[in-house]
Structure formats: structure tokens, C-alpha cells
């Protein structure tokens, strides 16, 4: 069974290799090859899952060492895998959703002549993401971590001829690099602390290490998570990442990659449990981000950007939960999975809408699309209900638990966090309803574009709708499935451990509060976008709206401080290098030249002056000999 894990990663990797080096002859068959290999790894995942269910809770963890990777002195990095319930969950999510989205892309990208490469990149992403979750030590995890970064770079910038896309890709990679810096420092700290960075020893030895070091490790891991999962303050890349093709946004920037941060924190739970300070930092980041994302989501008119904001905020929930420690891990992952379903579904829906509206993204130019694309409408609607946490749908269960856990933190801290989570739920309801209304309800608002061809909305082909339907099912039932007699909790508990928090108020009260907030949010949205028609051109809006449209000015801050500052720094450095460092040398050279120029005057070409020097020389010689004799 163990060697299947390797295959799990190898299959999509092979696909990537074949598709990227295959050359033009694969242009037609390429998409199907990619999809097939994704399906293969999904099949493998299922097989492993079945095998895992076969065994009892404790020995479900599979660890295997393929080969010794970098053995230098005391530094032993192996290519080894660890597959336990936690990673299994991810593997299933990744391969499952991944396969569906491959399928979807077959239809979505069929008119793009570079689609072979697109699928190559998708497979590359799958491989890297799988490596990330099945890695047996932090260094290998780091490999996957950067691998997904690369894949997302390639995919965001897939339409490279668009400068905006290229820039967005670069931005994403750079911001992620900052996070990766955190991860690598964390790994170094582990090495100096434990002499290794394999999961087993590190997590077991966590107790013995000094809290100071653990806090440092925790903060560094948090930094990494922030980068990958688009959490404040490293969230700025996610919005621009929407430049990529929609399937990419669905797979990478909604369902899987962005949740890697949650995985990292949950995986390193033992470290965080021993470092309360780090945990506080984590929950703070989570709470801030979930509000931040939600607020941004409310203001965006670009449907994908709105969804991106929502992604941010949902991941904020997960991080918050993960920061709560054993109380929250399970629910973090649970929300992650359900979110994987409905957010992927929502993005695919959005993609389908754009597909039908020839790539129009401005929701103010949609309206009343439910007539034109029923399937999309239904699936999108279900996803919508799921995300706002409509009772009975998956979002309801997972999110509700998180809010409870937040309250359960206890003390003012608990109240603040819980309040934030609750508020977040309300805002979620508001902006999702807004998206829903602006897109599918109201009267049609699109008109012919510059070169006069009006979009004529139509339903998308089967390859696109089928995955949407499947994902819709997931977003409806997954939550319930997990929730009934705590299946999911029992499944994960051996790995993450679990502690029942006792909220200051009863669970029912929390749920009720959530419902109230939810209704308020929906009602408010209806009042603003349902009752009266939506203006095609965005109104100026309040200062908050304007700020939110600009990602709460966070981008401007980056631009002014980092980009401008950096440019000035490099320019001045170039100048310094040229004038100062090089100038010193050239100055020396020049002075030597001048000196020799003067010396040259002695060679005036007059035999007589040469004779003088000879004569003087002779005199000196005599003097020398006399002195020699004298002494």
C-alpha cells in the first residue's frame, strides 16, 4: 500500500512531464491525457482510502521512506511520505475536485490553442499539492509548498500576453515567497532545536523544547500560512490572481492551494499547543482576515473578485478555528472540505456565466441570467445557500461549529472572536446574496460592447455543467454527512486530537444568533439590490465602499512603501555601485595614469639628458663603492 502513495504523486507529475515536453502532437489529445491522469490519482486515493478504512483508528497512519534525499552530516532529509487521516482528507479533496475541474476545463479551454500547456500546469499543480499533503517531513512539504506556488504562478499568468496577468502572477509568487521565507526559517529553527524536521520526532519532541523557540517557529509557520492562504497582511495577491482562467481560480484559489495554510497549522498543532502566544497571533490573523475578506467581498463588482474576497474570509474562519487549538482543528478541516465543494462550485458557476457572457466579469452588466442558464443558476444557488450557512446545507454545519468554538475560547477573547465570527457570517450572507441577485435576478443589464457584438447568454456544454452538478451535490450533503454522529470528528481525532469546548452560551443560542444575523444580511442585500434596480455604472458609494473596492487601501500601501521604496533603493544602489565602489578603483587607475604621464616627461629623447642620467649614475656608483670600502 505504501508505494501507492508515491504513485499518487507520480501520476499527475508524469502527466505534467508528458504534456509540457510532448510538443504539438499532443495538442488535441492533451486535455484528455491530463484529465485521465488526474482521475488515475483520484482512483489511487480512493483505493488508499478504502485500505485506510480497513484499519482501526490508531494504525491508520502510513509512513514510508522512498530514498534518502540530502544526507549531509547530521542533516538527514528523506523523501518520505506520511499518510494519515488528515492528509487522506486532503488527498481526496484535491484529487476529487481536481479531476472535476480538469473535466470542466476541457470544455472551458477548448478554444485556447495553448490548452495542452494549461493541462500540463494543472497536473503539475496536482502533483505539487499532493506532495505537500503527503510529505513526511517539513522540507518535503516545503518542496510541495513552493511547487504549488510555481503552478499557481504559471496558471495565473497563463494568458501571459496580458500584462495584467503577468504582473498578477509575479505578484502572487513574490508574496508567496515572503511566506515561504517564514517556512524555511521555521524549518531551520526546527533543525537547530530538534536536529531534524520529520513530522514524527518534531511533533513528539515539541513538549521538551523551550517555549520561546516554539513561539518563533509558530510565528514563522503562521507567516507561511498567511502567504499561501492569503491572510492579512499577505492577502493582497489573491484578488489579482483572478486574472487566471476561472478553473484555476476554482481549483487553486478556492478549493485547494489556498487552504494549505490551514493544513500547515493543523499539521503542526502540537507545536502551536505548546506556544500560546503563537496561537493568539493565529486567531487574531484569522479573525481580522475573515472580516477583511468579507468587507472587500461586499464592494467588488467583478464577480470573481467578490468570490475571492469571500474565499479570503472563509479561510479566515478556518485559520481562526485552527488557532483555537484542539477545540477547533477538526472544524477547521471540516469547513475546509465543505468550502472546497461549494466555493469550487461557485467559481465554476461564475466561470460558466462568463463563458456565456463572452468573458464579461462585471456583475453590473449581468442580471436576470437565471432564464438563460438554468443549470448554472441552480448549482450556483445551492452553493450560495451552502456558503451563507443555510440550515441543512454543508456550510451551516461547519461554520456554525467554528463560531461555537470561537465563543468557547472563553473570556473577553472568546466574546471578541465569537462576535467577529458571527458578524462575518452576517456579512457573508450580505455579499453572497448581492452576488446572487446582481447575477441571476433583476432585469438584463448587458449591452453590446465596443465592437457591437452583444453577448447572447447560453448554457455551457456538458463537460462544464456535469462537474458543477457534482460539486453542488457535495455542497448540499457533505456537511450533513460529516456532522451526523460526528463522523468527521471521529475520523480526524486520532491525528489532530479534539477537546470539547464549552461555550458560555448554549450551542442553540449561538445557532439562533447565527440565523438572525444571516437573515439580517440577506434582507439588507435584498433591500439594496433586490428591490430597486442595480445601476450599470457603480455609484460612488460611501468611503468604506470605496476603500473596500481598493482592497481597503492595502494594495496602495504596498505599492507606495514596498514597490516605490524598493525601486528607489535599487536605483540608488546602482548609482552607488557605479560611482562609489567602481569610482574608487577607476580613480586609482586614473591617478596612476597621471603619475606615469609625468614620469614620461623624463624620456625627452635628447641623448644629452640621457647622458646626464648616465653620468649621475656613474657618480652614484662611485659613491657606493667608496662607502662599501669605508664601512
Amino acid at each position: 500500500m505504501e508505494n501507492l502513495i508515491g504513485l499518487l504523486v507520480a501520476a499527475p507529475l508524469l502527466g505534467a512531464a508528458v504534456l509540457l515536453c510532448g510538443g504539438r502532437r499532443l495538442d488535441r489529445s492533451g486535455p484528455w491525457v491530463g484529465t485521465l491522469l488526474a482521475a488515475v490519482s483520484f482512483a489511487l486515493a480512493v483505493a488508499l482510502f478504502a485500505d485506510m478504512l480497513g484499519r482501526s483508528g490508531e494504525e491508520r497512519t502510513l509512513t514510508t521512506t522512498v530514498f534518502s534525499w540530502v544526507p549531509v552530516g547530521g542533516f538527514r532529509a528523506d523523501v518520505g511520505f506520511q499518510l494519515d487521516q488528515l492528509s487522506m482528507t486532503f488527498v481526496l479533496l484535491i484529487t476529487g475536485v481536481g479531476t472535476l475541474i480538469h473535466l470542466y476545463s476541457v470544455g472551458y479551454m477548448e478554444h485556447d490553442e495553448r490548452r495542452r500547456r494549461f493541462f500540463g500546469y494543472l497536473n503539475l499543480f496536482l502533483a505539487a499539492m499532493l506532495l505537500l499533503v503527503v510529505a513526511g517531513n517539513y522540507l518535503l512539504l516545503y518542496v510541495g509548498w513552493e511547487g504549488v506556488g510555481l503552478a499557481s504562478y504559471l496558471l495565473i499568468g497563463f494568458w501571459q500576453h496580458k500584462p495584467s496577468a503577468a504582473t498578477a502572477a509575479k505578484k502572487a509568487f513574490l508574496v508567496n515567497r515572503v511566506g515561504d521565507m517564514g517556512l524555511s526559517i521555521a524549518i531551520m529553527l526546527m533543525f537547530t532545536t530538534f536536529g531534524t524536521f520529520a513530522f514524527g520526532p518534531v511533533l513528539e519532541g515539541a513538549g521538551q523544547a523551550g517555549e520561546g523557540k516554539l513561539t518563533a517557529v509558530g510565528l514563522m509557520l503562521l507567516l507561511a500560512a498567511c502567504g499561501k492562504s492569503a491572510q492579512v497582511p499577505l492577502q493582497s495577491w489573491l484578488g489579482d490572481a483572478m486574472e487566471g482562467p476561472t478553473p484555476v481560480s476554482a481549483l487553486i484559489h478556492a478549493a485547494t492551494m489556498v487552504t494549505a495554510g490551514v493544513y500547515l497549522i493543523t499539521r503542526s498543532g502540537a507545536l502551536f499547543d505548546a506556544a500560546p502566544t503563537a496561537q493568539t497571533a493565529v486567531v487574531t490573523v484569522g479573525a481580522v482576515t475573515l472580516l477583511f475578506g468579507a468587507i472587500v467581498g461586499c464592494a467588488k463588482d467583478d464577480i470573481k473578485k467578490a468570490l475571492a474576497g469571500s474565499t479570503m474570509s472563509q479561510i479566515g474562519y478556518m485559520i481562526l478555528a485552527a488557532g483555537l487549538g484542539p477545540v477547533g482543528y477538526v472544524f477547521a478541516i471540516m469547513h475546509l472540505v465543505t468550502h472546497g465543494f461549494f466555493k469550487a462550485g461557485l467559481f465554476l458557476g461564475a466561470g460558466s456565466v462568463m463563458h456565456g457572457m463572452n468573458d464579461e466579469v462585471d456583475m453590473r452588466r449581468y442580471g436576470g441570467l437565471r432564464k438563460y442558464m438554468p443549470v448554472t443558476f441552480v448549482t450556483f444557488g445551492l452553493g450560495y445557500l451552502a456558503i451563507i450557512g443555510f440550515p441543512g446545507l454543508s456550510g451551516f454545519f461547519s461554520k456554525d461549529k467554528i463560531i461555537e468554538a470561537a465563543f468557547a475560547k472563553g473570556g473577553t477573547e472568546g466574546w471578541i472572536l465569537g462576535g467577529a465570527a458571527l458578524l462575518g457570517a452576517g456579512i457573508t450572507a450580505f455579499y453572497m446574496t448581492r452576488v446572487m441577485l446582481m447575477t441571476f435576478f433583476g432585469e438584463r443589464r448587458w449591452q453590446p460592447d465596443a465592437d457591437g457584438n452583444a453577448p447572447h447568454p447560453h448554457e455551457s456544454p456538458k463537460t462544464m455543467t456535469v462537474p458543477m452538478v457534482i460539486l453542488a451535490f457535495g455542497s448540499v450533503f457533505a456537511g450533513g454527512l460529516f456532522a451526523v454522529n460526528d463522523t468527521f470528528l471521529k475520523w480526524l481525532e486520532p491525528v489532530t486530537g479534539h477537546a470539547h469546548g464549552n461555550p458560555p452560551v448554549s450551542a442553540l443560542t449561538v445557532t439562533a444568533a447565527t440565523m438572525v444575523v444571516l437573515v439580517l444580511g440577506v434582507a439588507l442585500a435584498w433591500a439594496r439590490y433586490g428591490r430597486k434596480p442595480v445601476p450599470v455604472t457603480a455609484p460612488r458609494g460611501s468611503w468604506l465602499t470605496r476603500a473596500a473596492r481598493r482592497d481597503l487601501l492595502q494594495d496602495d500601501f504596498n505599492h507606495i512603501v514596498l514597490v516605490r521604496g524598493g525601486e528607489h533603493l535599487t536605483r540608488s544602489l546602482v548609482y552607488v555601485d557605479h560611482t562609489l565602489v567602481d569610482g574608487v578603483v577607476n580613480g586609482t587607475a586614473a591617478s596612476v595614469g597621471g603619475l606615469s604621464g609625468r614620469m614620461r616627461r623624463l624620456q625627452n629623447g635628447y641623448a644629452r639628458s640621457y647622458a646626464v642620467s648616465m653620468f649621475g649614475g656613474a657618480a652614484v656608483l662611485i659613491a657606493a663603492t667608496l662607502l662599501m670600502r669605508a664601512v
Partner: protein
Amino acid sequence: MSFPLLTATAVVPAVGAVATAAVPAARRAAAKWLALGFSLATLVLAAVQLVRFDPDAAGPFQLTESHAWIKDFGVRYELGVDGIAVVLIALTALLIPFIVLAGWHDADPLEGASPNWRWRPTQGFFALILMVEAMVVISFEATDVFLFYLFFEAMLIPMYFLIGGFGDRAGERSEEETAAQRSYAAVKFLLYNLAGGLIMMAAVIGLYAVTADQLGMGTFSLQEIVQARADGRLDLAPAAERSLFLGFFFAFAVKAPLWPLHTWLPNAMGEATAPVAVLITAVVDKVGTFAMLRFCLQLFPEASKWATPVIVALALVSIVYGALLAVGQRDIKRLVAYASISHFGFIVLGIFAMTTQGQGGATLYMVNHGISTAALMLVAGFLISRRGSRLIADYGGVQKVAPVLAGTFLVGGLATLSLPGLAPFVSEFLVLVGTFSRYPAAGIIATVGIVLAALYVLVLYQRTMTGPVKDGVRGMPDLRVRELAVVAPLIALLLFLGVYPKPLTEIIDPAVGHTMSQVEKSDPKPDVPVNEAEAAK
């Protein structure tokens, strides 16, 4: 006595150089094939070395050869390789064929140049490359300080002519201007390295004087001196040892190059043709860092430890400074040059971190940096040869017209920013870990270099390869077979060494251990030691 393998490895390219130079002017192609043949022969010999080398052998050096040379000054013709040298020799022998192949047309008569600039001595170009190879190889092999110094310096002569004699097509600039720039770069290269070399010579003589004074008979033999120090027959006064150390280190720091002695590199790499630039940064400069490991640390361990803080600081400056300047460059080749300065900072940092990971990583870094820079620079060279301009601003949207070129360029770039899965990542991480475990602050500062690396690589890629297609780029041909034959193996190697560097680390490890024992340093112990069994899990 057995077959003198080391001598052969150095002699073959030297003979090749002579033979190539002797080819009559009319038969240009013949000269090229001859050069390629000899470089491949050298590669075979280097491979034999790698096979015959036994990592677990007792002594520090293997395949040794030793003959009296200049008796009166105790100069011996002493060759020998340790794990570090043998790997670097392999790298050199591996890169030269690619350099020859990549420079196939770099010395042909210039089309479209005015008559007095058209002719270029093709035979000379390839002969010089082989000559450089021979000298580099022997300076990797020499265990006699004098012998090493001889070739360390002699290397400058062919390099000087390679830089000053052959450059890119003038492009927008006039031939006169290009020629002027070239000779400026060549002279700068020569002067910098000569200055370093002369100071080193003083130190070499000083070393001889000290040994002659204390051992009765002066010697240059590394092993002998190390041995004498070990059993206390030779003991240097701190002041003397430090000054000697500085003398050696200065020369190597110029060669490496370390901030602030770096400014010759961008000029040289900018003006020389891409293959020659690769020769400079991937092959010749390695001698400098290698010599730090072999001579500075082993001859003057105390002084090395004494100087470590300063050198680490300089290395950090190089890392960050080089990266920042790379970001600020407008010229592709100069950008790569500054990137190399940053990387050399990493290598020096690893060497002077005085940890197994640091030094092992540094050695591995030399190899990987050689390969990755070769990949990036050669592709850049192909790009430049197509457009006839080195300015980043002249390119754009290349990936649209030449996807393969763009792809290989990206891979080279990703290797330069040390993406996991490609070879440089392993070495860079080792260096970082090694540094961090001794100087955490330095480790963290160096990590900033990672981010900056991503910045300059991606900016370069974005500006040249993506976006709308520029006029000069339109209709640019994709990589030709010859060019692909150069790039593909390099990329394959990058991938392989990224996934499975064990073969190299196994050879390097014992040598590094030996060096560490010379310096009497051992790795810092972790706070919470976890037993190996668990670690292996």
C-alpha cells in the same frame, strides 16, 4: 607507478588547445570539432576520476602524484584530489563541451560588420577555452601552493583574450564603441585579478619563508604544512598567520568575487559572449571559492576563525547587495552577473559558517550554481544573438514567438531563484541551515536573498518573455537543435540533482568532514536531541 590520471586530465585539454590553434585558418569547422572532441575526452577522464575516487578512503587526497620540481625552493609537482576537488573537476569537464557547443558561431566572421571588424580568430577562441579548462583543472588538482598559484594566475591570460577579443554583435552600438567597452572590461578583469594575485604571491613567499625558517627546509606542500602544524613542528604566530591568511583570502575574494571587490564581474560578463561569461562565472570563479576551502581554511585555521565574523558580514552584503543590484539592471547579462555575485555570497557564507551543512552545501552550491547559471546565461545568449541587443527593454512577448526558448529560460531562472525540485535549492537550503545553526541572524538575513532572487528573476522573465510581442522580437526563431542540445542536458541535470543529490553529497561529505577537523570545529548540537532512528523516520 600507475597511470597519472590527474596529469592526463589536465594535459588533454592543453594538447587540445595547441592542436586547435594549429588548425589552418581555412578549416574553421575542423577546429570546432577538434575542440569539442578534446573537451569530451577530458570529460571522459574526469568521469574516470569520479569512478576511481573512493569517498570512504582514509587519506585526505587520492590519485596523488608527486615529483620534485624546483628543488632549491622545495617546489613540488604535487597533485591530488579530495571529494570537493573531484566534484568540481567533473563540473568543469562537464561544462566545457556545452560552452564550446554554445559558442559554436561566436567566433565566426561577423556578418554585417564593417570589413575591419569582420574577421575573428575562430581557432584561437576554442583553443583559449581549452587552455582555460586545462589550467582550471590543474589548479583544482594542485596540492602544492606554488603550483596552484602558478596556474591560478596563468588562467588570467587566456581569460583576458577571451573577454577582450570576442564579444556580441555590436547591435545598436558602433563596433568601435563595443570594442572599447570590451577592452575596458578585459583590462579591468586583468587588473583586479592581478592585484589579488600579487598580494597572494607575497603571502605565498611569506609562507615559504616561515616554513623555511621553522622546518629548516622551506616547502609549499599543503599536506606537509598541515602535517607539520598537526604535530607542532610548525606553529605560526597569530599576527603572521593572519597576515598570510589575508593575503590568500584577498586573491580568492577578488576571484570569487566578494563585495566590494565585485565590480569587474558585471563588466566582464556583460561584454564577453555568453559562453565566455559562463566560463568566467561557472568555472573560473569557482577556483576562488574552492581555494578558500582548500587553502585558507586548511593552512590557516586559526586565522580563518578569527576572520569569520567579517567575512560572514561581507558575504551577507554580497547576497543582498548583489540581488538588489540585479533588480536594478537594464542589461540581461549584467543582471545575471549581479545574481551570480549574490550566489557567490551564499557560497562564501556557507564556507565560513564552519558547519558540515554549510561547507557541504557551499561545495554543492558551486556545482549547482555552475549548472544553473550556465543554463540561464546560455539561453540568454541565444536570445541576445537573435535580437542583437542586451537591453531588457528591447524584448517582450518572446514566449509567444519562441515558446521553447522562453520555457528553458524560465527553468534556468527558476533554478537561479532556487526553486525546490531543482538542484540549487538543495545547496542553498543547506547553506542556510548551516549558517543558521551557527549564526541565526545571518541565516535570516540571507533568507531575504531568496525573496529578492524571486524578484529579479521574475521581473526579468516578465519583461522579456511575457506581454505583447515587441517589434524586434516578431518572427524570432525558436531554439535550434544545437542550442537545444546544449540546454536540454543542463536542465535534465538540474532536475536530477534536485531530486537525487546523494551521489554528490556522499563524495563531498568526507572531504568536508576533513576540512572541519582541520579547523577543529564541530556542528552545534540541537537543544532537544532526537535520536537518529526517529529522525530517519
